[in-house]
């Protein structure tokens, strides 16, 4: 999908994202750095290099439920089978390695927070981004990415349906409000989908929606603030 309207339809109609198994080219990254990223990392880097993001050394919050977990599995398997691991893979097996590659390429010393959360990825990312704003950052890059798990792990945790990455630039303002309150008994309460963070992108794109539950109990919610004109219409 390349045009805005296609994305809005995707958001409204809750269609699944289809990944055709292509690896993001990340053309603008030096090849010597790019080669270190796996498909998930490359998807994240492609987003960070998007012209519309206009990276200007903002602080970044990198959010991924499992990161490049396939790499860690390969390391463990080769350790068990051969007693040694690949130094290159090992060096990339930390959660902040992907944003790290980007910062090296951009020669940036800006702060990066790398978060992992099983069921509260959107909430954790938003709270951290708001913390950075409260600390004086004019804007924060909030990046989410995840990919389907290696089959070995699937029986144990929610599996992500597709490989994806998206970034939001968060600035202080009144368009949205993060609220915490009683768990509500209304229609807001629904089991969170297996997608860790794509619901946030759908919510931002679908302007007809008022609230996004961020936890299973919906005690944390993201609210879209309606402007007075719209509210009276």
């Amino acid at each position, binding site marked *: 999908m390349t045009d805005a309207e296609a994305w809005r339809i995707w958001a409204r109609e809750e269609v699944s994202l289809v990944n055709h198994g292509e690896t993001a080219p990340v053309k603008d990254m030096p090849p010597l750095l790019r080669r270190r990223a796996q498909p998930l990392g490359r998807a994240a880097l492609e987003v960070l290099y998007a012209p519309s993001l206009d990276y200007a050394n903002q602080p970044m919050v990198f959010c991924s439920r499992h990161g490049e977990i396939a790499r860690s599995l390969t390391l463990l398997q080769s350790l068990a089978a051969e007693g040694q691991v*690949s130094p*290159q893979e090992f*060096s990339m097996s930390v959660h902040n390695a992907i944003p790290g590659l980007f910062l090296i390429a951009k020669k940036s010393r800006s702060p990066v927070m790398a978060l992992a959360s099983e069921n509260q990825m959107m909430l954790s990312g938003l709270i951290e981004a708001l913390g950075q704003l409260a600390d004086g950052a004019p804007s924060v890059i909030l990046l989410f990415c995840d990919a389907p798990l290696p089959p070995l792990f699937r029986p144990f945790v929610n599996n992500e349906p597709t490989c994806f990455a998206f970034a939001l630039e968060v600035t202080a303002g009144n368009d949205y409000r993060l609220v915490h309150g009683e768990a509500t008994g209304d229609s807001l309460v629904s089991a969170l989908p297996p997608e860790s963070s794509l619901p946030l992108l759908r919510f931002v794109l679908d302007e007809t929606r008022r609230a996004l539950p961020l936890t299973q109990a919906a005690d944390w919610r993201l609210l879209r603030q309606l402007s007075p004109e719209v509210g009276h219409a």
Partner: protein
Amino acid sequence: MTDLIDEIKTLIIETLNLEDVTVADIDTDAPLFVEGLGLDSIDALELGVALHKRYGLTLSDEAEETKEHFASVRHLADFVAAHRNR
């Protein structure tokens, strides 16, 4: 020797995921690290593991000596030819 040189170039490309680099692109006498091919210290470790697996080589802890072996593909090929046991 030419065969071994090309074999080592292929090993470098495959081990270090050098996308878009071909055997013909690697200058046999150019430095591998920092300049030339532009590899870094993690690549040196990775290459050490690969040389051990493929040729049964063990690199000495003597930094200067190891540095010499890794100076270029030609140096590496000389080292492999002299010390390989597989």
